[in-house]
């Protein structure tokens, strides 16, 4: 049985969901100032439904974590969650390492009820008015290098060949770059996951079209609803369980945030040596990368280890 149980509340409106007087003990939000509309809405909602909150920031160049703008070790982050029974993580605005560290700290502190909020945008900023970029290239981020982060560091040249799961979004360069920068992954069995159904019908075509050049005939293509944390988590756990030889399962969360949350739960669950390996490229997000708000998702995660 899987360690985490996930239930989802989806609210299909622009306005925040009314969840009565539900309040969390603590909330984790981003201290990033480059926020888009939906992140602002999400943070406002989070603050109004939490008795207290703290700000998280992780700088990838220096591998430094900040809690409430002060440099903090992972121990300090854990201390922030000590004795907390319920935690709301504002996942829309947190970067992937920030999300992962917060989740890891919460599970280590045995927080009983962990919730994550994710707000979909109405649209992504497209860069199609000049013809120098790919028609389907959404100008979401500058490309960056794949680099490991503290606590999730694995030397891919030293471990056995296993399976690699790539969750993909619109940006084709990210998979291409992974395959070029990490040539050691060539012989790995690859699973490519697209978000289908997408947040808006038609977006999946962009994701597939932008990545098609990097796919090979041997790759396993999988489709998982763009907003489903549980399906992403389940897929990874199934792959983990079906490998009798216990070879590594590498996960590259380059697609939707809900898929990335599923991947984070998987990484935390399988913390034994080389069982779950993270590959991530830390894109720099540009300001106002999305417009407006489309839909709200609240994921409640029960950690069976803490309950």
């Amino acid at each position, binding site marked *: 049985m899987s360690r985490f149980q996930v239930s989802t509340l989806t609210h299909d409106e622009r306005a925040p969901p009314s969840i009565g007087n539900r309040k969390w003990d603590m909330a984790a939000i981003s201290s990033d100032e480059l926020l888009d509309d939906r992140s602002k809405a999400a943070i406002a909602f989070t603050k109004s439904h939490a008795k207290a909150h703290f700000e998280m920031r992780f*700088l990838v*160049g*220096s*591998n*430094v974590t900040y809690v409430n703008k002060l*440099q903090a*070790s*992972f*121990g300090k982050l854990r201390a922030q969650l000590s004795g907390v029974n319920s935690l709301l993580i504002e996942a829309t605005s947190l970067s992937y390492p920030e999300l992962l560290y917060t989740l890891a700290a919460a599970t280590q502190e045995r927080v009983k009820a962990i919730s994550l909020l994710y707000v979909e945008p109405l649209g992504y900023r497209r*860069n199609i*008015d*000049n*013809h*120098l*970029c*790919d*028609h389907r290239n959404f100008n979401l981020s*500058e*490309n*960056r*290098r*794949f*680099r*490991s*982060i*503290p*606590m*999730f*560091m*694995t*030397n*891919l*040249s*030293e471990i056995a060949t296993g399976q690699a799961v790539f969750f993909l979004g619109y940006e*084709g*360069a990210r998979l*291409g*770059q*992974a*395959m*070029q*920068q*990490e*040539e*050691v992954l*060539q*012989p790995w069995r690859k699973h490519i996951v697209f978000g289908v159904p997408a947040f808006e019908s038609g977006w999946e075509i962009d994701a597939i079209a932008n990545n098609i*050049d990097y796919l090979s005939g041997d790759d396993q293509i999988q489709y998982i609803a763009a907003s489903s944390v549980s399906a992403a988590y389940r897929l990874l756990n199934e792959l983990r369980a079906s490998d009798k030889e216990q070879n590594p399962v590498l996960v590259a969360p380059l697609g939707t945030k809900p898929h990335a949350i599923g991947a984070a739960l998987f990484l935390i669950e399988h*913390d034994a*040596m*080389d069982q779950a390996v993270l*590959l991530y490229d830390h894109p720099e997000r540009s300001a106002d990368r999305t417009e407006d708000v489309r839909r709200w998702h609240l994921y409640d995660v029960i950690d069976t280890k803490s309950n």
Partner: protein
Amino acid sequence: MQNAFIRNRTEEFGHDIWSSYVLPPYFPTLGFNEARKSVVLEGGRGCGKTALLRYLSFQSQFSFDRKAVPEDAFKTVGLYLKADSQYFSGFTGAGLSDAKWQNIFEHALCLALAEQIVGAVRTLNCSAERTALYGEIDKLDFDDAAGGFVEGGLPSSLLAFEKWLRSQRQNLSRWFKNFDETKPPALLPLREFLGSLIVEFHAKLPYFATSVFAVYVDEYENLLEYQQKLLNTLIKSGEPPLIFHVAMKPNGMRTRNTTGPESIQEVADFRLIKLDDALAPQFRLFAAELFFFRLIAEAGVPENATPIKLDVLRNEHRITERLSDSLYHSRVFAEMERILPGKSYGEIARDALDDPVLLGRWKRIVTAGLQRLKSRRVADDFLIKDAPEATIICAALLHQRSKNADEVFNELSEYASGNSSKFKEGEWIHHLLIGTLLLLYLPYRQRSCPIYAGFDAFAKLSRTNIRHFLELCHLSIGSFSGGASLSDFSVTIDSQAKAAFAASQKFRKEVAGSGDHGNRLLAVVNILGKVFRLSQSRESQSEPERTHFSILDEETSGAGKTILDEAVKWSVLFEEPETKVKGNRYESNDYVLNPIYAPFFGISYNKGRKLEIQSRDANTILAGPVDQFTLLLRHYEKTWSVIRNDDQFDLDLGGM
């Protein structure tokens, strides 16, 4: 011939490439086996760096496939180490000082290399037969050799030491999982620890008694600055029996500093070998040899159906023979040109005049030229089917300011009558033919262009990139029944030209994945491709075959310089010393666009006339906002007064 060329990265062949490695012609000049000083191998993508290092490493040298390991192979034992970029780039910050990280990095490197050293003994003794011949493993005592470096000593036997090394690696990983809560593992000093292991090998294993251990660090460019400094220190202090060599892309050495006050110097501390330059003079031969080698090894074509012999290509002592035997060269090239036939430019010109679409375009360009010159002559006056090359370039000549219609007509008549003329003796054909043919083909991207077909064209498109060459072959030949006879097999010009376009498109897209600035580099390729295409579209062809540029006035700096260096690093551009200096103004080196992109943009794979770019415009291309690109293109269009005639000239190149 099924998929003989599909594997085009060394990584797909594993560590032991003994049986699949074709020795490159420059191999004897490397002198690795005698090297007592470090070598820095510099080479662009696909030039064969990784394959070379893997060939030199013990996995290949002591390969199970090798029937007898010669004496020479024991002189230098190669230890291959690829810097896993995502792993080592995480070795920073997290509340630890750089000095601390440097020790951790050294420790990780030390463990990896210790595993390699014992791996060399294991691989050499990989069979009962080998063990009987070499063996003596039980004499090794690792505790005695290096126990002093570790509290509580080391296990003595090889097997137990291997286990210990693995557990040390896991200790490090475990600590990485929980940095600030647990004590770091005891860290090993690399040079001293490995040195002790080597002393033990020298003393106990007679076959390694005088061996030098050479570490080959691949992808040095991916290391962080302090990591490069540590390696530079190892380069500087390297001496037998432990030497460090590194391989990197151009511009890959970000610092020459060591961890101490000194820096490393070329010649004094290391020898720099530029692999692309070493490969360039013999690239055609090497590419052809590799082609046949793959057909035999991967597709099961009988060796005697080809002009090569596997054993010769794998034999270090027969390279000189390969290079000097001109009869062998003729056989190899003749067979290569039979399988991948090309057309001469003369033939392409003749075919163009027989093609109604291309002839129609030629007539329109000639007519426009005559109108511009206000001549009473008509296009048909210049159409001499028996003189196709001269006829074709009349399209360009009639648009050149310095020419008039009567002069061109008279010269053409002389040429057609076999007399001396400016077409031949004045080198008009020589200078203008390829450019004018490309001009004719330019609007018709859906047609395959024969200029890009043929073994010679493939070699030029690949420059020194073996991966590009193999992909061109793969896309041309595809999968085809292995039972078919090679002597009956030949690829059509059309299939080759289509393959060239497909490969060009594929590799252009791949630029997006090139390092930290891949998206930007792709934009640079696109804008340069378009500028050169625009230049190519000028009817006069007064600056034919433009595919390279230099930067005038000011040296590029800041963000522009970073991108220029990255473009060279990723072989998007090739940097060459400038060809001409005009007066005393600043002019940069030449930057040549990688010829693999030529078919996509419809431009030449030759280095023709240079485009001189003002530093301001160069900065726009390299680092400016993308919306300025359109303005820049308009500017060139205006300067070059590109005439839009009735032929659709598509700069958008749809779907880019």
